């Protein structure tokens, strides 16, 4: 066998391996959609459409599957988290790239990166010890609430969001900043009208990634939100999110149990929301700086 033939054979083997890996990934993806979709279909065939997704009462053992409280919980927790985290993360990014000396940048990135690696259960314990009492002082009640979950999540996503914003800000060419300053713009005007203006797309992308992270977070939220299945009428009321309720009920509704497929419905809702976010990132991410 010549060297060339050997190379060709190695190439064929490699090709096969890569193809198999890609096919496996795609198959796993389809398996998820398929299983959840099939479970959801069976749920609706068994329980009908009313009193389910748009219902307000949830008691799976009594056959009540209203998911509206959890949808509202997920949306409000995510909204609070992103609204609180975004300005903070943006400040971190601006401070790190524009205000502080440039030699500090690697250290800042490493520190923020290590914060992003803290497991969520740690944030949950921290929330239990710090955020819940704080919210209790601010809003009364028990402190276990949508607001507490939003704050814990905000702290959780600040590092990720800052890192993405720092990377975006670093992509702004130095000569644009210098040009703007040379033309007589103040540093503030340069920041607002040149730097932030030119990285709108990557910042929006970072925001969507943060929304995804907040929407999917489970453990930290479950520990501080209170786990009640009522519609949360204000931010200081306890509630539950789609993810935290899946976690609460997964032990109660094992495969084969009555009502098990409501978990599939919740998971499919989350999957659809995440997929929507991915599509959004792709649309925005295509745009370049400018």
């Amino acid at each position, binding site marked *: 066998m010549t060297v060339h033939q050997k190379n060709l054979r190695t190439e064929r083997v490699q090709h096969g391996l890569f193809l198999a890996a890609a096919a496996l990934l795609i198959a796993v993806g389809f398996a*998820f959609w398929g*299983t959840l979709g099939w479970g959801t279909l069976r749920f609706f065939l068994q329980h009908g459409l009313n009193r389910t997704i748009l219902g307000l009462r949830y008691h*799976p*053992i009594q056959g009540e599957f209203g998911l509206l409280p959890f949808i509202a919980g997920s949306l409000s927790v995510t909204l609070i988290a992103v609204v609180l985290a975004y300005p903070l993360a943006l400040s971190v990014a601006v401070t790190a790239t524009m205000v502080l000396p440039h030699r500090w940048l690697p250290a800042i990135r490493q520190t923020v990166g290590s914060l992003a690696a803290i497991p969520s259960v740690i944030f*949950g*314990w921290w929330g*239990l*010890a710090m955020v*819940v*009492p704080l919210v*209790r002082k601010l809003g009364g009640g*028990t*402190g*276990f609430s949508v607001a507490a979950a939003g704050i814990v999540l905000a702290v959780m996503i600040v590092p990720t969001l800052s890192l993405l914003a720092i990377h975006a800000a670093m992509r702004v060419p130095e000569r644009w900043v210098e040009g703007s300053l040379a033309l007589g713009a103040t540093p503030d005007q340069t920041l607002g009208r040149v730097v932030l203006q030119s990285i709108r797309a990557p910042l929006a992308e970072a925001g969507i990634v943060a929304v995804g992270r907040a929407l999917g977070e*489970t453990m930290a939220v*479950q*520990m501080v939100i*209170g*786990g*009640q*299945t*009522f519609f949360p009428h204000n931010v200081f009321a*306890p509630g*539950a999110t789609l993810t935290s309720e*899946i*976690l*609460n*009920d*997964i*032990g*109660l*509704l*094992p*495969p*084969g*149990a009555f009502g098990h497929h409501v978990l599939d419905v919740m*998971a499919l809702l989350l999957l659809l929301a995440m997929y929507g976010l991915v599509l959004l990132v792709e649309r925005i991410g295509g745009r370049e700086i400018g």
Partner: protein
Amino acid sequence: MFFLQWWIAIWLSQRGILERSAHIAISGSSALLPVIKEELPRWEARHPEVRVSVTGGGSWAGLAAVSQGRADIGMSDIVPPEAMSRGMLGYPLGRLPVLFIGNRHIGVNQVSQPQLEQLLAGDIGNWRQVGGANAPVVVVSRPLSSGARFMTERRILKGRSVSPRAIIQLSNGALYKTVISTPGALGYVEWRPDLKGVVVMAVGSSRFDLRRGDRWPYYTEPTLYVRKSAPAIVKQLAADLSRSPAKAQFGLYPAQP
């Protein structure tokens, strides 16, 4: 991620059955994990031909997994319904006390059983009504899948449900921590080695004493369930685990005859 782990666990346990039970899968209540994990290495050393895997997931999940053949041994502190228990053998481990704990500042350390029922159901809204401080009662509970909740609703609440306004915590540890830090909190925990920082409630004339834990009237009865048709080695494992001398250090008191 949870579903993926679920699938992997199911897949692994099915493989175990196909391999002539050289691999035994245990699944169920996380309350029993510590004692099982303490005893298992010794057992495996005596039976090198058998590999044993242990996963949590809750009592209901364990019972369902055994009755559907997805696991060999199910750990449960919930009594299985008649239809499920018919084809199964149970190996009881003893009694695991369930204690009613309150925040330090409630000003009460003893309640009658009917009072406890009304407190947990949410009928009594302020500790003043049972002679305590002027503080709203905040019930802290485990989710519906918990064995301790199952026992509490059956024995204390006489079949009623814990207050729907209760704060839900998933684990014994998180519930304990919540009761420590939340003013007016009332909850229930399975036995744990330390109960500092909370009031352990006396119920009626019963007061919990660590050394006489077998006298405490409120307990779950954690049990290992196997299918009647299971291979002898599976039943052997369940029987050996249920007799483990490590039980005492995890609060499992012998059942009184």
